[in-house]
């Protein structure tokens, strides 16, 4: 197996982990074992996985409430992730955060945030800190195209450009802000043009392949690391499930969904790896992931709940 094939297999494995984790989370949700909101990353896996492959381990990453994929790609254990969804004290945030608030400080995964756009200045602040300390560290901030109309997107980008902060803004454009299609959200179809008014570099491409995501983001990461300049990158993608578990998806046709599933980057990588003669490795990886996800669910079910003492804040 060549180095590049081994890398591709590892990235495929990560994407399968996310997909199978999300499918089992959906099942547990429908069984009433997970409460609140549950926003699945199914369909968007190549973005988190490709991005993490292009970053260094101590770079900062921050995302929205659709945060399971990035957390897992970054190295959070499936056990800590699933236990958080189950509200257990063994979860990454001790059962205090839930689906929308995954945090993993050890892996510099600085959170999932539930207010659309609110984390964009926060992400810029982590880049501000890196620059202040004269570190060559990059921040990467993920958000949907639904975030680009709100004020914090513009304030965050405006200040990042003004102060030349080492950050990559990644717009995961899945074409729907909850149930509102792009055409009814924005006056322009090309989200990356929002960078122009801030004098910021931009890029735009489809997340058809995990290696494309990795290589294109590497350019923006290099700009941040070497020149301390921000970039807005629009990555076109599609989510194969609803906005959250309560979304019946009536705003799009079954035909559209089926058509888009043909562009599934997970299947694309699988086909590529099989064609490269790695079918057995692919199947072994898939088998391993099944066990890991089953173990995570078992761990989450068996873990204890946090007691009232865990919720108490000693701030007051």
């Amino acid at each position, binding site marked *: 197996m060549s180095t590049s094939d081994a890398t591709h297999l590892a990235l495929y494995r990560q994407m399968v982990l996310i997909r199978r984790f999300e499918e089992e989370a959906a099942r547990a949700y429908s069984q009433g074992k997970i409460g609140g909101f549950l926003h699945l990353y199914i369909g968007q896996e190549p973005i988190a996985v490709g991005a993490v492959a292009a970053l260094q381990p101590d770079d900062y990453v921050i995302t929205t409430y659709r945060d399971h994929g990035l957390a897992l790609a970054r190295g959070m254990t499936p056990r800590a992730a699933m236990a958080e969804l189950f509200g257990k004290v063994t979860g990454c945030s001790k059962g205090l955060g839930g689906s929308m608030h995954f945090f993993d400080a050890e892996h510099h995964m*600085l*959170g999932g945030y539930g207010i659309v756009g609110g984390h964009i*200045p*926060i992400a810029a*602040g982590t880049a*501000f*800190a890196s620059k202040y*300390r004269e570190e060559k560290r990059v921040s990467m901030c993920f958000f949907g195209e639904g975030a680009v109309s709100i004020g914090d997107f513009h*304030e965050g980008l405006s*200040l990042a450009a003004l102060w030349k902060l080492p950050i990559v803004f990644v717009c995961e454009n899945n074409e729907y802000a909850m149930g509102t299609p792009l055409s009814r959200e924005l006056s322009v179809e090309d989200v990356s043009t929002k960078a122009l008014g801030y004098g910021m570099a931009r890029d735009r491409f489809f997340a058809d392949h995990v290696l494309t995501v990795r290589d294109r983001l590497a350019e923006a990461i290099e700009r941040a690391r070497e020149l301390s300049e921000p970039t807005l990158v629009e990555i076109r993608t599609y989510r194969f499930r609803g906005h959250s578990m309560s979304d019946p998806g009536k705003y799009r046709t079954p035909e559209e969904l089926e058509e888009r599933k043909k562009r599934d980057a997970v299947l694309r990588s699988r086909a590529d790896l099989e064609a490269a003669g790695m079918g057995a490795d692919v199947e072994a990886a898939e088998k391993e992931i099944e066990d890991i996800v089953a173990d995570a669910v078992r761990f989450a079910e068996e873990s204890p709940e946090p007691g009232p003492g865990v919720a108490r804040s000693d701030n007051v």
Partner: protein
Amino acid sequence: MSVMRFREAVRAAMIEEMERDSRVYLIGEEVGHYQGAYKVSEGMLERFGEKRVIDTPITESGFTGISIGAAMVGLRPIVEYMTWNFSAVAFDQILNNAAKLRQMSGGQLHVPIVFRAPNGSAKQVGSQHSHSMEHFYAHVPGLKVLAPATPADAKGLLKAAIRDDDPVLYMESETLYGVKGEVPEDPDFVLPMGVANVAREGTDVTIVSWSRMVHVSLEAANALEKEGISAEVIDLRSLRPLDEESLVRSVHKTHRAIVAHEGWPYGGVGAEVADRIQRLAFDDLDAPILRVTTRDVPMPYNAKLEQYVIPQAPRIVEAAKKVLYRA
């Protein structure tokens, strides 16, 4: 000890802490080249340079969020709003990020940040520039709220706020900036948060207050003294955490309490103080607890009307007589 104005005490606290810790910096609108909208940061740009005294565009939500993000990964920002009124457009950042990050990350992250600005009424600045924002913020677990009344407390509490590992909101007052007082010069003069000060001892009635209203309460206490009424003035200094013990101790002595503050009467810190006293010292009370607050209207521009709306010493005197059944 040296005599300083309130604004100089705030500045001295910032300078000392910035010299002590390179992670501390000041950020806000007009804090650098303009020398501070109210001259609080005068001279600091020259002393620390543009890296640590940072002028921002008019982007309260943006620079608040950026500072929270920087604090989350280890810096210790001091965020100055031109006034607390403008923090309203950054409310989401303070409420949802600064206050929540520690708890919702299961304790993995801390946000060591100070937000500071003048608060409350100034002079005829109208309804949008006269808010008492402490009432909004003190409601939120995860935030600490300080409101000193004297230059010494201003310095000691701001230093404590900067050294704290969690968010602290620090309320100043445009009309207090020129007030003079003795201030310790010891660079480790740090006051504990959550400890009230007895600004004046008395035996007949307790007046609870903070920030500028402490001075108005003292004026009222002097007037009451002339009528043979001995008022004790408690300066809370810290609104969250709240010093319940000092309230109980005072009411145990006086059996009567009033709360005098700027800001509207509906809800708010005054209502919280009244709740604590009735709950913790019910048997000591000889009269209902009364509140003297900004009247329940948006602040009018007209000078006489503004004075009518803001609590004045005669209103405090009247309330004190009422709880003493001498009205």
